[in-house]
């Protein structure tokens, strides 16, 4: 944790990973970046996010649960209310283990759930499977040995396939409960996380020119080479994802991602969204007219927002 002598208004050294430097809200501006992080950290500790006991992905929880965690921080409470007024009625929390982005986004949980709830399930599944299959050559081109990714790919593929084709062992199709169970089970959940990390890395390596200008060491801010960045901050388990990784994974999976930043940026009661737009077929739109996977970001952590 940073020293808490840093005053508000001073440029934060690593503004890109917290987005706190631009806080204009008077109430939040009174808090230093260190205090904001501390507030979040305290919340994470109180709610047990820092322990290994929390489920990898939770049941849907009403927004009041989230609200209750920000007792004494009216700006945050107002922003949570604003999210709710925009139709986001529930949140699914993920364990704060550095893998939460991969676990909840894109395909991992929220995406599979989107496919599961698509108006034309068969089309959505076929489309997801074909997108997924098309990622294999990308991994190969990045130099990964099939031995490294095949089993993880298979875990992911079979979860999506199970939406329409009953599992050979259990004879059951994927239901929301089975999906949640699968993602709460560390082996399956972590296998999918690993596949998405490898895919993200392969996407960055394949389109090096698109990404190389944006690769910085998250702690020192020094520019990094593609290979070094991918090995240290994409492939390695437990390393949190930032914009570069999110952009790359959203592209590789052809998925739209919207992230609500509840981190003190911006002003007023509105929550700032960042969009990662890609084409996607056959998925339902939510009340905001978007078919994106929606995540809630708080410094150092991603959860899923649902309508």
């Amino acid at each position, binding site marked *: 944790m940073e020293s808490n002598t840093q005053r508000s208004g001073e440029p934060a050294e690593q503004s890109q990973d917290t987005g706190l430097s631009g806080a204009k809200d008077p109430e939040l501006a009174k808090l230093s970046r260190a205090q904001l992080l501390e507030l979040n950290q305290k919340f994470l500790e109180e709610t047990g996010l820092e322990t290994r006991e929390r489920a990898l992905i939770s049941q849907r929880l009403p927004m009041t649960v989230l609200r209750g965690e920000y007792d004494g921080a009216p700006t945050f409470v107002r922003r949570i209310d604003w999210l709710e007024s925009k139709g986001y009625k529930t949140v699914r929390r993920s364990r704060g*283990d*550095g893998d939460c982005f991969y676990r909840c986004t894109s395909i991992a949980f929220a995406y599979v759930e989107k496919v599961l709830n698509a108006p034309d399930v068969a089309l959505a599944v076929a489309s997801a499977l074909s997108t997924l299959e098309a990622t294999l050559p990308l991994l190969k081109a990045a130099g*990964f040995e099939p*031995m*490294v990714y095949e*089993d*993880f790919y298979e875990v992911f593929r079979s979860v999506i396939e199970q939406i329409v084709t009953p599992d050979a062992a259990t004879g059951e199709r994927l239901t929301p409960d089975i999906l949640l169970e699968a993602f709460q*089970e*560390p*082996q*399956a959940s*972590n*296998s999918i996380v*690993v596949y998405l*990390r*490898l895919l993200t890395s392969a996407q960055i390596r394949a389109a090096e020119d698109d990404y190389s200008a944006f690769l910085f*060491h998250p*702690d*020192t801010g020094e520019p990094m080479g593609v290979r*070094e960045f991918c*090995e*240290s901050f994409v*492939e*390695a*388990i*437990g*390393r949190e994802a930032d914009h570069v990784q999110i952009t790359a994974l959203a592209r590789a999976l052809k998925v739209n991602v919207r992230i609500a930043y509840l981190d003190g940026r911006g002003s007023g009661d509105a929550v700032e969204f960042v969009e990662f737009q890609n084409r996607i077929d056959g998925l339902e739109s939510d009340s905001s007219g978007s078919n994106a996977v929606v995540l809630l970001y708080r410094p150092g952590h991603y959860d899923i927002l649902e309508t």
Partner: protein
Amino acid sequence: MNKSSSASALRRLMTEYKQLTEGGSPDDMFTAGPISESDFFTWEALISGPKDTPFEGGIFVAKLTFPSDYPLSPFKMKFEPPILHPNVYADGNVCISILHTPGDDPTHYEAASERWSPVQSVEKVILSVISMLAEPNLESGANIDCCKLYRDNKPEYERRVRAMVREQLGL
């Protein structure tokens, strides 16, 4: 699900073993494989001391122990008998960043140092250990006395390593 987890670990270990036996290691620096056909989760590695180091001429035996969720989690590596080296604990356990996940950081490795991910393999780890034999990492020492000796009196460190090599060879 535990059953399927060790099934996938087993598949991966058999693939790695097959590749090692078919391809061999660069310059025959090491061999590695399961101690017994009935247990693929415990391997033995024989590592030649790298040339132009005090370890030259020695053959070092290490036991590799794989978890049931390998390669999601890394394996453990222990020299048996233990060897004298700044990054090897007195009991023989090897302390190297590549065998640790980013969250698991017993010795405060530099942030940029290589960590475990399923992309790593037995071969890559052993090659890292061989280069560690040649160039100890004093920033993340495991055997503090040995780190000190290496820093303060390198000739004496080298003499003791050579003596250990001779002793292990029964000379």
